[in-house]
């Protein structure tokens, strides 16, 4: 069993979608406000990272992804409605043979969760008392494992990301690229319709908003 399961799952995702620097940056975050601060190298054995799912759900909109939350109610609603079950079902149903690679690798993440839950479950059994017979990992059924998952939600950051957001490295990549494209488009707007046109100003404000978000993320990365 991998000692750093989230590192492994994040690494497998990130290697598909982003550079190694992004992976390192994610793991170096320490701000409690930012979801990336929750992506540390810690394992499940650190109790402070284990949060009940209810508090994770409440905090799922901490970091502003204002574009997605304002403009796309349809998939936000679908994601929030039964997000975990829906996404997990879709992840398992997808035809693995047809697809060459998976960016989030849900089935393997779920397998990792189950194995972690087993190890957690066996650990908790030992704590309960020496008089009770502790179940071995092989004797735990998958239903017991899933029960343990629901009781002891492992990693807050993982569940926060799974709620209704795309992975942060992917968002970074998309926003950086969008910024480059829109900056060039702004020049065309200015030369085509003028600096004072309301569309030009709207685009300018939008670009400034994107830049502010990106700078805020970079500042958090520095800390």
């Amino acid at each position, binding site marked *: 069993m991998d000692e750093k399961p989230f590192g492994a799952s994040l690494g497998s995702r990130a290697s598909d979608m982003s550079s190694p620097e992004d992976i390192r940056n994610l793991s170096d975050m320490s701000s409690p406000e930012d979801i990336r601060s929750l992506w540390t190298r810690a394992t499940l054995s650190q109790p402070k990272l284990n949060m009940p799912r209810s508090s994770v759900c409440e905090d799922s909109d901490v970091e502003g992804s204002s574009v997605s939350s304002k403009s796309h109610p349809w998939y936000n609603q679908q994601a929030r409605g039964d997000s975990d079950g829906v996404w997990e079902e879709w992840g398992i149903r997808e035809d693995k043979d*047809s*697809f060459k690679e998976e*960016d989030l690798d849900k089935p393997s993440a779920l397998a990792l969760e189950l194995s972690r839950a087993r190890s957690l479950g066996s650990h908790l059994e030992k704590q309960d008392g020496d008089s009770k017979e502790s179940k071995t990992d092989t004797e735990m059924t998958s239903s017991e494992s899933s029960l343990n998952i629901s009781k002891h939600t492992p990693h807050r950051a993982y569940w926060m990301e799974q709620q209704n957001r795309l992975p942060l490295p992917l968002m970074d990549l*998309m926003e950086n690229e*969008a910024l480059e*494209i829109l900056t060039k*488009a702004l020049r065309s707007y200015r030369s085509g319709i003028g600096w004072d046109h309301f569309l030009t100003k709207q685009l300018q404000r*939008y670009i400034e908003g994107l830049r502010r978000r990106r700078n805020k993320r970079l500042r958090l990365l520095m800390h």
Partner: protein
Amino acid sequence: MRLKQGSFLWYLYLDKLYCLLSVRNVKALLEYFHLLDVHRNNTLNDVLFYHFLHHVTSWNRTQIMIVFNMLDWNAVGEIGFDQFYMLVCILLAQQQNHLEEQFIFRHSRPVFELLDLDGALRIGAENFHMYNFLFNIKKEDLRELYHDFDITGDRQKRLNYKEFKLFTIFTMDKYQERQKAEKNQELPNHPQKSLSMRNRKEYCLSKIVAHKSNL
């Protein structure tokens, strides 16, 4: 045409069998589309569309505007997400080991409708010439297409949908034979090279019948 390495689209991929994006990829693409949708219309205008394609592809202005006019099938001057998704699938089909044949075979109807600019339910050779950078159809293949597949014989050098479908089936067979040959590491001896023109038509008709019976 190759997508710009490291760009967002470069990381996406089509399912090899159905030539479509997965749900996760569509979600990511939708997010990306909305990042570019500056004016909150759920559309991209021609300027934004041009700069997007100019950033991620090596196409020139003329080619980009041809694609824009093709996708703006409602003639509103803007591209919605449906058209954007179609474009991304076409780009990825080119990118991914020449999946164009598979893509055209799987989505022959939408492709036919895209190429049928004037809505006459017929595609002329000039349509193909205009879009050969998009679907990677070579000149010799085009000549063969109009020579061999204009079965209705209207001699107007325009194909209807059935003839176009026939062409896609034939191209798909060629592609699969090429794949097999590459697997066996032999040079393909394509059937059409050894067949006469009349036999080629008969071969194609037999393929249609086989295809229909499989459906």
